[in-house]
């Protein structure tokens, strides 16, 4: 029977999981346990709706509504002294709940605290840019758009950043295969030689570990050398091994343990 791979998540999965396996959880503690976080949370709660808040591995996580993102980040920056936006990106939950989760990782240097603001949007929704507050969001939001296709409103320069401008597809989505899709396979051929050269050149090999045993143009096997381009699909001649030092090549000698010197001092 053919194995079934869901189209919306083609990432690698463990081939075996015990049927009684229950994944343990990283402990979530209540925000009231940390005075600084508790007061920050109160300040956010007084102005915006907070869906969930907890402390995990020493950092507070605040889940908000997606349309509040600009307001919350503004509040954190201007009133709560979170003066750096260290990271901003998305997580693809399209296969399970049809949503992207967007997280803003912020740092307060005066309080020595880190906080993560999270919100969820569906695939068709867009989110407000926070580039006006933190310039670092300029590039992170471009990267998020590039990798996930999350559309950002009011961004000054919404273009792809890592992938080429004319790329199709969003590489970090779970539906995008690791080796790239069909578009990726033909990308370089199409751009450099044109579509008409597809038949001559063929698709790009995107499996970096692939070895073609019969391709003597591009692959050689040590100890089984044959002339380049020889057809060995019908069996191959046995080539005796000849080392170049045995024929007296200039400057190349056979290793002689007796004559070699071991340098033990580093100050050579």
């Amino acid at each position: 029977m053919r194995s079934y791979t869901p189209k919306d998540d083609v990432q690698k999965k463990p081939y075996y999981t015990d049927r009684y396996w229950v994944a343990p959880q990283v402990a979530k503690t209540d925000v009231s346990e940390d005075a600084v976080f508790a007061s920050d949370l109160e300040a956010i709660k007084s102005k915006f709706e907070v869906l969930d808040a907890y402390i995990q591995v020493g950092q507070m996580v605040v889940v908000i509504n997606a349309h509040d993102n600009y307001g919350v980040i503004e509040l954190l920056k201007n009133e709560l002294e979170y003066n750096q936006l260290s990271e901003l990106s998305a997580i693809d939950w399209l296969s399970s709940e049809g949503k992207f989760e967007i997280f803003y990782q912020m740092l307060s240097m005066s309080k020595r605290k880190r906080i993560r603001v999270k919100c969820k949007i569906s695939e068709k929704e867009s989110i407000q840019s926070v580039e006006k507050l933190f310039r670092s969001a300029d590039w992170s939001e471009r990267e998020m758009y590039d990798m996930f296709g999350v559309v950002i409103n009011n961004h000054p320069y919404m273009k792809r950043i890592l992938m080429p401008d004319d790329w199709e597809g969003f590489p970090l989505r779970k539906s995008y295969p690791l080796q790239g899709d069909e578009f990726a396979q033909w990308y370089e051929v199409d751009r450099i030689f044109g579509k008409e050269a597809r038949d001559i050149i063929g698709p790009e090999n995107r499996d970096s570990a692939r070895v073609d045993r019969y391709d003597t143009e591009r692959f050689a096997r040590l100890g089984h050398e044959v002339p380049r381009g020889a057809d060995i699909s019908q069996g191959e001649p046995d080539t005796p091994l000849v080392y170049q030092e045995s024929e007296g090549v200039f400057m190349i000698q056979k290793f002689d343990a007796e004559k070699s010197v071991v340098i033990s001092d580093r100050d050579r």
Partner: protein
Amino acid sequence: MQQANRLRPFFENITFDRDDNELILNFGPQHPSAHGQLRLMLHLQQEQITKAHPDIGYLHRGMEKMAENMIYNEFMPTTDRMDYIASSSNNYGFALAVEKLIGLEVPRRAKVIRMMLLETNRLMSHLFWLATTALDIGAMTVFLFAFREREYLMDLIEDYCGARLTHAAVRIGGVPLDLPDNFIADLRKFLDKLPENIKDYEDLLDSNRIWKMRMENVGVISKEMALSWGCSGVMLRASGVEWDIRKEEPYELYDEVEFSVPVSDKGDNYARYKLYMAEMRESAKILYQVLDMYADTTPELMAHAPQYISAPKIDIMTQNYSLMQHFVLVTQGMRPPVGEVYVATESPKGELGYYINSQGGAYPYRLKLRAPSFWHTGILTDLLPGHYIPDVVSIIGTTNIVFGEVDR
């Protein structure tokens, strides 16, 4: 209209028939001073830059995507390829993030060895920075001097883990190997000579007329700009923000060693240069203290957590159950608890952060690499306008960007 993507000459650097005097110059991606595959599109008025568009992605390998398709231990060698000038610090950041996720405590000897690796890597990175930046400015001698010292450190690292550039010298849960014979003596010998070496560089550069002209008051980053652009490390401290993660959120043994964090409020290239030199001295200070700690440690190197970490080799070879667990951990991988973690460490370039979202599987559901150089490249958009073409080279130099890290 020409098509840019065919193999025909295409004069994208030259724009004809323009009313204004603006020239668009393509700096890179093969420019030797771009420190990698950086393409800068510079709009010029005479020699002055009016607009700059850094274009990155030429070294994009999709590490975050790869991470989602690899078991945790498998990803460790990939982290080497981020900041390949100081790979152990990348390994360490990843190992620390996974350890925080699992809640592991690492044995003390492993911590001491990690500290040694981290600080030697910092030295290697700073020496490399000094060498290449000085070379860009034209100081060939400093390049040769600094590479000589870096070579010594690379030999030391090679003695430890067998690799010179891509170390993979840290494991999740500890370190794989104990220090080889003579490592401590060799490192001490290096450190004893280091102040002399640093003085050599400084004698050549500090009051060098050309160096000062190219560095002083060039590439000034204000405090607000540095914070807003997410700068970290020396880029931030040169702009007057005293923030070193080693000091403020200490990890490993950084709370047990004494060192100071050099800060400058000038914000220009020269300030950054001085900070790099000062940081090398501080690293040496830390290394001396760590070397003394080594003798008091017990020989365990890996944490004991059979569910996540393989047992020591002697157990694997003698005990059936350890062998079984090792087999499962290698073929299927460890499965950290469900949860998410963001861990920042102070890599030589700045704040290196790993965000891991685990759904209890053997593969991370999402792994975000927060590489400092990414934003240090982004800041060029705002930093370059107003400067002249020769300044571009020195500014790129002092931002200390590595493209393995920018593009990931």
